[in-house]
């Protein structure tokens, strides 16, 4: 009985933490519990949420990608260059930007699969190089001057209430859940991350599957990059620094295993929401950025330690 209970508790623990946080902040600060603020939080976590979906694919497939933040920075600079300096059609420029990050993701997957370099190292190299390229191309200065209508994508609201980035995030989440739970491709991700050799000997094309996880992450990173560009209204070479760490934190908080084969999109998104609520709630209460970092780190450690304890208890 108790055994059953602890299992259920573990399964929904992360959801409980989420609820408790919301209740806690609401009691401490009336400004927190308001529709406007909820929409704010959704807007704030939308980019993280979009990338977290892709990151979950990669983690479940037994991989890791540290280059997503740099991908966004370089892509935003490139899009600005194409629109402002080359006078390209903005829609085309954005499409090219997304194609670019998808190609980077594919390349990451290709290198990791074909050479066997650990993903940590391969994507760390990519992170460093892309960030450098963003600075070189922009000379280190932000690029302003994208058309105003683009800012709607980042800052607009549907029916004056629901933020457009939030809508994009919801669409991406639905896509992620469908892919992972309902299609054979999603099943192959789990198989790959659980036991690559067994997956191969079952007739799964493990190389293709692995590259696909990285390519999908690249695609979603591109979408998040467009949102980022439209929110800030400029391409900035130093934007989204350490963004991958926030995404990783969200996924791990949400129960996605860094060893591959385990995790759900819903969990990872709740992880992202917890980070969003923590950031927002603490800002409202006047805690500065540095305190927020300490709290985020402590929450991550606490959740993971608790999870590992309850796991070993079970056995």
């Amino acid at each position, binding site marked *: 009985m108790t*055994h059953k209970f602890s299992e259920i508790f573990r399964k929904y623990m992360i959801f409980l933490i989420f609820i408790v946080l919301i209740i806690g902040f609401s009691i401490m600060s009336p400004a927190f519990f308001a529709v406007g603020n909820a929409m704010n939080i959704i807007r704030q976590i939308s980019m993280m949420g979009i990338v977290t979906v892709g990151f979950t694919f990669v983690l479940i497939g037994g991989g890791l990608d540290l280059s997503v933040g740099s991908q966004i920075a370089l892509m935003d600079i490139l899009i600005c260059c194409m629109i402002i300096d080359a006078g390209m059609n903005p829609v085309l420029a954005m499409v090219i930007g997304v194609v670019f990050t998808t190609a980077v993701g594919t390349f990451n997957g290709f290198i990791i699969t074909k050479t066997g370099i650990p993903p940590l190292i391969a994507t760390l190299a990519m992170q460093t190089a892309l960030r450098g390229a963003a600075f070189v191309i922009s000379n280190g200065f932000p690029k302003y001057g994208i058309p105003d209508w683009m800012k709607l994508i980042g800052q607009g609201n549907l029916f004056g209430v629901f933020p457009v980035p939030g809508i994009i995030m919801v669409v991406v989440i639905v896509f992620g859940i*469908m*892919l992972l739970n*309902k*299609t*054979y*491709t999603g*099943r*192959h991700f*789990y*198989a790959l991350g*659980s*036991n690559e*050799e*067994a*997956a*191969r*000997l*079952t*007739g*799964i*094309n493990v190389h293709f599957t692995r590259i696909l996880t990285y390519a999908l992450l690249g695609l979603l990173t591109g979408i998040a990059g467009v949102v980022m560009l439209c929110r800030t209204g400029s391409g900035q070479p130093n934007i989204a620094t350490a963004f991958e760490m926030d995404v990783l934190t969200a996924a791990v908080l949400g129960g996605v295993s860094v060893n591959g*084969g*385990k995790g759900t999109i819903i969990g990872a998104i709740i992880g992202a929401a917890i980070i969003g609520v923590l950031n927002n709630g603490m800002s409202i209460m006047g805690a500065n950025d540095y305190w927020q970092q300490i709290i985020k780190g402590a929450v991550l450690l606490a959740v993971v330690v608790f999870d590992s304890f309850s796991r070993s208890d079970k056995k």
Partner: protein
Amino acid sequence: MEKKKELVLSVKNICKRYGGIQALDHVSIDFEKRETHALVGENGAGKSTLIKMISGAEVPDSGEMIFDGKSYERMTPQLSKSAGVSTIYQEFNLFPSLTVAENIYMGDELLSDKRKTFYDAGEYVEKAGEVLNRMKVDISPTELIEHMTTAQMQLVEIAKAVAKDAKILIMDEPTAPLSTKETEDLFELIGRLKESGVTIIYISHRMEELYRIADRLTVMRDGKYILTSTPDKITRQELICQMANRKVEEIEFHHTWPTKDVVLEAKNIAGNGLEDISFSLRQGEILGLGGLLGAGRTELARLLFGAEKIESGELWLEGKRITVNSPKQAVKQGIAYVPEDRKIHGAILSLPISWNITMPILKAISGKNGIIRQKEEDAIVEEHRQAFRIKLGSVKDHVSSLSGGNQQKVVLAKWIASNPKVLILDEPTRGVDVGAKQEIYGLIADFAKKGLAIILISSDMDELLNISDRLIVLNEKRIVGRLEKEEFSQDKVLAMASGVL
């Protein structure tokens, strides 16, 4: 001349409960000095749990263990070690990138080290060399583990025990990964260890070796102690009967179905170390591959399945020349492979049973948009669960929750679900208990009856000779002999396999 019996270890009234399962129920057994004491029973009988109590990995709920007259309520790994217990599990505890000497003394560094600042590699090598000499085995103490064969690694595990002057050596299915010759060597070594005063607790599912080396046999069933006997006082049939608590026929495999057209034909295949392999395989036929470990049997299986590359030669399937450059291609053409290591290669233990069963056919039961047709999947899983009589709680449980026999059934089910033309079975009953073994033999017979062409690899000689219709014997990666059913004999196969014939 009967020596006076000297007890090394007695366990008394040990009980252990895991959740709803009584894993051990008032078990009492005496182990004498200088004996090979075999523990037998089906999977789940409590043998492994008992071993864990003795080695200190788990704590009993009640009962006591008496080592050399000293009574303990519970052991810890340290306590157990100081009482002279060494355990050799099926999965070795070795560090691949370290040398034999370093492995032998790992965690048990020489006393002299404490006086020195730096560790003296030479001294370790010397001491390890002495141990290996005492065991009369030909292994260099400076060899790296990763360069060794399974049999050699096992010897290093034994050397670890000998170096600690173990009084009790527990071996869990030690012969499972060994070839016939290596098994002989191991038995000799066990004999020598016994002479030097070591008690060996031996777990195995292989009947003939129990009768060869055990001084006494203890049968366990459902967590209970059943009986202890010397091998000469109990027949094999009786023993099996006691283990299973029901009548289980030993392998009986008269096959009565006709074999039909040639399905698979290999012409001068080479690759993965193999050379000049030619054979043909008919529908409904079971072709056995004999040979010692490392002779090339698994290598050949992996070649046919596309897991390794065929460098030259031709492969024909149903009259058409095929290429298999990857397992994916092999599966598509109707070749299925049940690998020897079920836990690592056969099933994905951490995923649900249902997912495992439909893994090879997932794409086929999905729509164009990639979405799996859930009802179809459920139906296929249910059909195979029943056909294979897989004992499970829920098909959503992970494969790791199943017993060895049932895990193997899941692997078989997943391949049969893919409706193959050729099924390659690599050690299909390794680590599977007597009852489940029979069920698997029954399943194999059914497959063949239905016209499946089967290639069987087995180190279990009885199994190989009983089930196969024809035999190909390999030695040093080449075919050295072919035997028809009426020519089968253990001696012939062994002679061919060791290159004598």
